[in-house]
C-alpha cells in the first residue's frame, strides 16, 4: 500500500509538486496522468526516495526513505540506465545480490524470457537498444518481487510484444496484490487496467477518479483530461 500525504517538492522558487495527497491500496493500479511538465516524474522520483521533499510518503507503513521500504519498492525510470559493462544476466545477479534475494534464478529466467531478452542474456548494457534497455529496467524492478511498483512512462520505447507482455504482467501483479503507480500522458495506453486516475497539472492533483465511479457516472475521462489541461485551471474539479 502507498500513502502520499502533503507531498511538496520545490526547486528553488519553482514548485514541481504542490501539496499532493493520495493513497493507493494493495492490488490497485493508479495512473498519474498529465501533460509534459505537470510534475508526474518528479512525484514518482519523490516516492522512489530519490528526491528530497516536504510531506510524508509511506510504503506499506514504512517511510519511503527507510531500508525496509526500499526492499519493497520497484522503480522503472523514464530513461533506462543500465550498467554499460554488465550483461543482461549480470544485471539480474547484481540486483539479486544487492537486495539479498534468495532463489531468484528461476524468476530471473522467467522475466528475461517474457521480455524476449533470453537470446541477449550475454549482451552488455552498452550493446542494447533503448527499448531493450527499458526491458532490463523492468526485469530488474520486478525481480525483487516488490509490493509497490513505480512505472515512469513505461511504454515509451517498447515494441508491441513487450507492451503486450508488460500489460499482462501488470494484471498479474495486480492479482497478487501489488500496488502499482504508472505515470503517463497517453491515456489510451492505460485505459484497460487503471483503478484510480490522478490528473495532474502544474504540480497539483486537479482531479482524482476511481474506475467504478467513472463507469457508473459515464464520465468521459479524455474530455475531463483535456478540460483540465487545456484551460490550465487551478481549482480542483
Amino acid at each position, binding site marked *: 500500500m502507498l500513502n502520499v500525504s502533503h507531498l511538496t517538492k520545490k526547486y528553488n522558487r519553482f514548485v514541481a509538486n504542490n501539496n499532493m495527497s493520495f493513497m493507493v491500496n494493495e492490488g490497485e493500479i493508479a495512473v498519474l496522468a498529465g501533460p509534459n511538465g505537470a510534475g508526474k516524474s518528479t512525484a514518482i522520483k519523490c516516492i522512489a526516495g530519490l528526491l528530497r521533499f516536504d510531506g510524508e510518503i509511506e510504503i506499506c507503513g514504512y517511510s519511503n*526513505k527507510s531500508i525496509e521500504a526500499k526492499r519493497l519498492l520497484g522503480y522503472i525510470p523514464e530513461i533506462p540506465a543500465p550498467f554499460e559493462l554488465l550483461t543482461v544476466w549480470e544485471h539480474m545477479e547484481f540486483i539479486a*545480490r544487492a537486495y539479498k534475494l534468495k532463489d531468484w534464478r528461476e524468476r530471473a529466467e522467467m522475466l528475461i524470457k517474457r521480455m524476449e531478452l533470453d537470446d541477449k542474456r550475454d549482451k552488455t548494457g552498452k550493446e542494447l537498444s533503448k527499448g531493450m534497455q527499458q526491458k532490463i529496467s523492468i526485469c530488474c524492478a520486478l525481480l525483487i518481487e516488490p509490493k509497490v511498483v513505480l512505472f515512469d512512462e513505461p511504454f515509451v520505447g517498447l515494441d508491441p510484444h513487450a507492451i503486450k507482455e508488460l500489460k499482462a504482467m501488470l494484471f498479474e501483479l495486480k492479482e497478487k496484490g501489488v500496488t502499482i503507480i504508472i505515470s503517463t500522458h497517453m491515456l489510451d495506453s492505460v485505459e484497460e487496467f487503471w483503478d484510480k486516475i490522478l490528473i495532474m497539472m502544474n504540480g497539483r492533483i486537479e482531479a482524482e477518479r476511481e474506475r467504478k465511479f467513472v463507469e457508473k457516472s459515464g464520465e468521459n475521462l479524455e474530455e475531463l483530461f483535456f478540460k483540465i489541461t487545456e484551460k490550465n485551471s487551478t481549482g480542483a474539479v
Partner: protein
Amino acid sequence: MGSILYLLRKNIKNAIVDTFRHPMKLIVYGLIAASLVYAVVRGFTMEVDVDDMLDSRILYGAYLALLYFISIPIMLKGLSTGSSFFTLSDVTNIFTAPISPKKILVYGIGKQLATSLFLVVCFSAYGSMAIKMFELTIGGALLLVGGIALMLLIVQIMTLLIFCICSSKPSLSIYFKLFIFSLALFALGTTTAFMFSTSMTLENLYTAISEEYLEYVPIIGWVHGVVFGLISGSTTKVMIYSSLLLVLCIISVIVFMHAKLDYYENVISRAESYYEFRESIRSGTMSDKVLMGSRKIKLRKMGINKGSGASAIFFKHLREGSRRSRFMFFNINTVVLIGISAVIGLVMKTFFYKYWQITYIYIADVIICSYVQFFFSAAGDWVKELNKPYIFLIPDSSVKKLIMAGATSIIKPFCDGMISFFFLWILVGGSPIDALACALAYGSFGCIYISSNILAQRIVGISGNRGVFITFYMGIMIVLMVPGILAGFFCLTFITWELKVIATTVICIPIIIWNIFISFMIFLMCRNLLNNIE
C-alpha cells in the same frame, strides 16, 4: 551562405547573452581575462637579472614544440572526416538544408578556427614574459604571436585539403596519417639521434632543439622558418619558406574548389558520439558507453559471483573493471602514468642530477603524477555510479553503499602508484622505502580526490549545477591537500644533513597520514549522501 552567417551571428549573440545570465560562467571568464592581463603586466614589469635570462635556443625549440602542439591535433581531425567540426544540431539542421556542402565545410572549419584563436589570445599573454626572458623586442614578440595565427590559418587550409581528399577516397587517409605522424617523428627522431650521438647534457639538448634542419619539416617547420627568419632578419629564409607555404595554400584551395564533396554520412555517427561525449561532460554524467565509444567489450569472466547488499556494488565494479582492462586495475591510465613518471625521472636524472638530490626527482614525480591522476579520477567508478538510480534504491545503509561504491576508486590509485614508482625506482635508483612512500602518497591523493568529490556532491547536491560543483570540488580539493603538504615540508626542516637520505619518506609520511585521515572523516561526515539523488 546568408543562413549560415545568420546562424553564426545569432550563436555569438546568444552565447554572450547566456554568459551574462550565468554569473559563474562570467566569473570564470573574468578570472581567465584577469590572469591573462596579469601575465602581460607581470611580464613587462618583472625584473630579470642577466644571469636569469634564458638561452634563446630554448625559445627556438619551445616555439617549434608549440607549433607542433597546435597543428598536429587539428590535422588529425581532418583525417577523421570532420568529426568535431560539426555538432549534432548542425547535422540535423544544416546538412538537410539546401546549402552547398563546400560552404558547410567552410563554416565547420571556420568554427574550429574561432576556437583555436582562443589559444592565440592565451599565448599572446606570455609574449611580454618572452620579451624579458629572451631579450626580445616588442616586434619580435608580436611576430611570435602572429606566427601562431599564421600556423592556425595554414593548418585549417591543410585540414580542408586532407578532408576533401579523404572524404572522397577514405583509403588515402592512412597515407595522410603516416605523413602527419612522420612530421612529429622527424623532430623527435633527429633530436633523440643528436643526443645519443653526442652526450646527454642540457647544452646538447639546447643545440638539438635549435638545429636549422628542423625548419625543413613541411608546414610546421616552414612557419617556424618564416617567423624566426623575420626576427633574425634573414630575408632568404623568409622568402623560401613563405613561398613554399603560399604554393601549398594555392594547391589546397584549387583542390577544394574542384572537389566533389559527399561527407555527410561520415560525419553523422561521429557527430552523435561527440554530442554524447560533450553532453556527458556538461552534465557530469560520464559513462562507460561514452568512454569506450564503439570499442568491442570482451566479456571474459561471467557473473558478479560475490557480494551481498552494498558489497555487491564493489564486486560489480570489479567485474566492470575486468571488462575495461584484462588486468583490472592496470589499464591504459597506468601505462600513461608509468610513461610520465619515467620521462620525468629520466629527464631530471639526466639533465639536473648534478644539482638536485634524488629527493627532488621523487617529489616532482609525486606532484606531477598526482596532478595527472586528477583527470583520471573524473571517470572513476564512483562518479559513474551516481548517474544511475540503483545505488539510491538498494536497501542497505548509505554509508556502506558510499564506501563500497568508492572502494575501487580508492584502490586503483594505490595500485597505479605502486607500479609506476616501482618502475621509477628501477630507472633512477634511490631507496625502495622512498619509492614505496611516494606510491602511498600518490595513492593517498586519490583518497583526497574522491573525498573532495563526495564533499562537493554533499554541498552542491548530486544533481546540482555542474559549474558550481566543479568550482567547489577544486576549492575543497586544494583546501584538503594543503595541510598534508605543509606538514610534509615542515617535517623536512627537522632533517639534518646526515639524514637527508630519508628526506623523501619524511615528506611523504605526513601527507599520507593526513590525506587518509581527512578522507576517512569526510566519508563519515557525508555518510547520508546517498539518501537521495539531489
